[in-house]
């Protein structure tokens, strides 16, 4: 299960963190870019094509490519049943960033969900810490 892993920035756990940050930033950029261009054309904006006017959307696409490549790299080293649940930390980070950066509201139900995800992540990450100690 555990192959020899590269160190430093090539370490798969570091790359997994990078993947999560890429996804988080591109989701936020996409939202900003799409909202900015929503008024350009009432009909075409529904296809998403008008969003291409925004440089933020192009940056989002670049980050999407980075996130895909880093995900493939992560899969090479980390078991899917650990890497995938951990990568979903982004589902907590997106609403939290929307709250902090975009000033959106978080309902009580959403806070409950965020708490559940965090407990789940801690449970999933614990064996990882032990796994790494052995190496």
């Amino acid at each position, binding site marked *: *299960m555990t*192959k020899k892993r590269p160190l430093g920035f090539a370490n798969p756990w570091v790359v997994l963190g990078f993947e999560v940050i890429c996804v988080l930033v591109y989701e936020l950029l996409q939202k900003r870019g799409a909202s900015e261009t929503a008024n350009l054309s009432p009909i075409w904006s529904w296809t998403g094509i008008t969003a291409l006017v925004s440089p933020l959307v192009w940056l989002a696409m670049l980050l999407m490519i980075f996130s895909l490549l880093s995900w*493939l*790299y992560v*899969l*090479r080293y980390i*078991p*899917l*049943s*650990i890497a*995938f*649940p951990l990568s*979903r930390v982004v*589902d*907590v980070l997106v*609403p939290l960033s929307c709250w902090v950066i975009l000033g959106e509201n978080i*309902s009580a*139900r*959403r806070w*409950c*969900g*965020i*708490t*559940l*995800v*965090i*407990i*789940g*992540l*801690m*449970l*999933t990450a*614990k*064996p990882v810490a032990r796994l790494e100690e052995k190496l």
Partner: protein
Amino acid sequence: MRWLVVVLIPIALIAFVTGQLFLKHAMESSAVKGFRDAQVISFLSYGVLSMTVHFFLMLGLLAHLDLSYVYPFQGLSVIMISLAAAVMLRERLNLRLTFGSLLISAGIVLVSMS
């Protein structure tokens, strides 16, 4: 059109889970066989194909339904992928990991429903 939604959401989910399994299998084999190996290339292609099917099914669903209706189902992918990886890829899955995935799935469903 209700029946179409009931059919398409599970298909989209299964396509996503299958895609991840293929990609994982391809990347793991590539560590041993390299990227020019015919098997690695075919697994990568199946993975990309499944993910593409998922992508377009999701676009189709989102065109007709609210994101807050579609996205909670996506949360289920966490527990589905963990179980599928244990069965198909023989990854070790203990009670803690299963429970962790289950909580993450439930949490995402709650977060995306509100």
